[in-house]
């Protein structure tokens, strides 16, 4: 069930020291600051964090799809033995859509409005698998059936605007899965959808990743939604990973004050009944105005002097193990206990 085994699992994607900058009128500003992330073979990683903390840019930068003014400043991204950030353009094109599938946040705008969905699914098959159009259409029909679209053969000739949001997101997933990728990156694929549809999409991906044996990175700001889907969670705050732990461990023992705040802001039934929702006060730092020490310090109730002077490193809690946290106080509390 769980991807953790006794021997060290093989890493499919290994991102080290990734920093991303944006050109502003006042000079370059850091958006993502030395992120370390990895995804094991067959593992599902959840990336959680507030809006604007750099989740999307991190994933886009791996595929070198950043918008014009935003650049990777440093870091490596090893994927199946090669660095995504330095490989040649033609190698990269084979990875894009071939070995790595992408599912975007907004199903309403991420499909070409003037192209039939069948053609959009066939596109990567023709390009990466050198399939003939007729074969690609057969495969596209299978894919639509796989993602749970009723009467798939008829839907091939539909245009995106003829489908509901949930159906379009299924089409996006079908496109992402078309070439049997080793890694599927889903960037908040359910944010634009109704709650019931959200759960359906999560269940769908859960089922598919077992069936297809692929790794998944699922970006979200809704921890509760993906609790049953992911193996491990990386919590992002202001462009850094502040906590990284197996999902059960994270829920049982959240150690970073920000993670605790996130978990506390998940509404429980009793909270909703009492109309009482807790949330973290304040806002994340703007790019270009990052605090000197711990990026969370301005909003942290436990902040001490050391937090404002140096950046807490992401280290295993208690010295070893898969649960890592970047917080002076959390590390010390464990030592004391």
């Amino acid at each position, binding site marked *: 069930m769980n991807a953790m085994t006794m021997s060290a699992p093989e890493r499919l994607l290994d991102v080290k020291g990734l920093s991303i900058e944006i050109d502003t009128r006042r000079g370059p500003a850091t958006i993502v600051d030395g992120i370390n992330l990895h995804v094991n073979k067959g593992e599902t990683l959840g990336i959680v964090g507030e809006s604007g903390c750099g989740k999307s840019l991190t994933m*886009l930068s791996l*595929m070198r*799809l950043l*918008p014009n003014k935003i650049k990777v400043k440093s870091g490596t991204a090893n994927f199946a033995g090669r660095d995504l950030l330095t490989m040649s353009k033609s190698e*990269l*094109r*084979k*990875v*894009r*859509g*071939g070995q790595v599938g*992408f599912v*975007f*946040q*907004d199903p309403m*705008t*991420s*499909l*070409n*409005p*003037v*192209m039939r969905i069948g053609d959009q699914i066939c*596109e*990567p098959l023709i*390009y*990466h698998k050198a399939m003939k159009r*007729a074969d690609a*259409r*057969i495969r596209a*029909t*299978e894919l639509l059936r796989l993602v749970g679209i009723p*009467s798939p*053969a*008829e839907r091939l*000739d539909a*245009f995106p*605007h*003829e489908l509901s949001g949930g159906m379009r997101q299924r089409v*996006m997933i079908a*496109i992402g899965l078309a070439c049997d990728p080793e890694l599927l990156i889903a960037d908040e694929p359910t944010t634009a959808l109704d709650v019931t549809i959200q759960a359906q999409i999560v269940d769908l991906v859960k089922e598919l990743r077992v069936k297809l044996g692929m790794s998944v990175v699922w970006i979200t700001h809704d921890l509760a939604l993906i609790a049953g889907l992911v193996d491990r969670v990386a919590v992002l705050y202001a462009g850094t990973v502040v906590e990284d732990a197996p999902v059960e461990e994270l829920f049982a023992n959240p150690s970073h004050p920000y993670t605790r705040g996130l978990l506390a802001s998940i509404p429980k039934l009793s909270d909703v009944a009492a109309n009482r929702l807790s949330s973290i006060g304040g806002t994340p730092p703007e790019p270009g105005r990052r605090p000197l020490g711990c990026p969370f310090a301005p909003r942290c109730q436990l902040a001490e002097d050391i937090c404002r002077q140096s950046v807490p490193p992401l280290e295993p809690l208690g010295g070893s193990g898969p649960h890592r946290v970047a917080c002076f106080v959390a590390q010390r509390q464990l030592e004391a206990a």
Partner: protein
Amino acid sequence: MATIPMTPAELDEPKTSLWRDAWYRLVRNKLAIFGLFVIIVLAFAAAFGPYLTPYDFLSQDLDARNAAPSWAHLFGTDDLGRDVFSRVIYGTRTAFVVAIVVTAIAVTIGVALGAMAGFFGGWLDRIIMWLTDVTMSVPNLLLVVVINASLKAPLAAWMEAQYMATLNPFFRETIWVDFILVFGSMALISWPPYARLVRAQVLSIRSRPYITAARALGLTTRIILMRYVVPNAVGPLIVSVSAGLGTAMVLESAFSFLGVGVNPPTPSWGNMISDGLRVWQHYPHLLAAPAAVLGLATVGFSFLGDGLNDALNPRGSK
């Protein structure tokens, strides 16, 4: 192939598409359909009218000069006794030929330059936009007058020389000099709006999520341009071409009216309006007939353009 079910129900089901939807929206728009109807009637007149008209546009009937409208002459006759109805129909042909050719040239130039500017950006964009601005800042009439004044005589002389050398009757027709100058100068002042429109379209489409999604599929720049960028820019272009055809007709009439367009005896609405204006107190039909048809054409294209705009951008309208 066998895995794709081809049930009768599926085959009978009407396939909807973006264009079909747009068409349905257009047909429901009464003004647009009126515009389309007017344009079709005028286009029919332009194409076949000259074979159907009761009189030749040049044939004079000096016994019936300046005759009021009658059954024999629906729109009356002019000061040389020529049938105004026939001349208006010939003028329709002139207007359509000029509008279509000028718009085709202008759209070709505009789309090519605009797409390059928008897609490649940088210095190419700056040069093209500079060219666009310069062209737009020169007063249209001035440019056309200058071109006509400076090129007409040499071009006519050249044609004459060619005729003398080859005896090819083509070079005898001074009408071609008119047309080349009219087409050229009007296309020259008409392309910048198309270039701007296409550039803006390409710029905005370039940053749409589906373009990022297409790049994330590993597709090449060429495929992305051809299958993702261009088809999405076509809708607004159609709208603007429809409006542009109407504008080109008005321009042709205006220039002919001012004597720098199509020259007599080739019938043009502008010429006829110009002639009619001199005698309108006595023979109002000489002004009314060409003016009314010009007005009708303008209204037709404008209604169709508005209708297309609403049909192709259902979310953008009202």
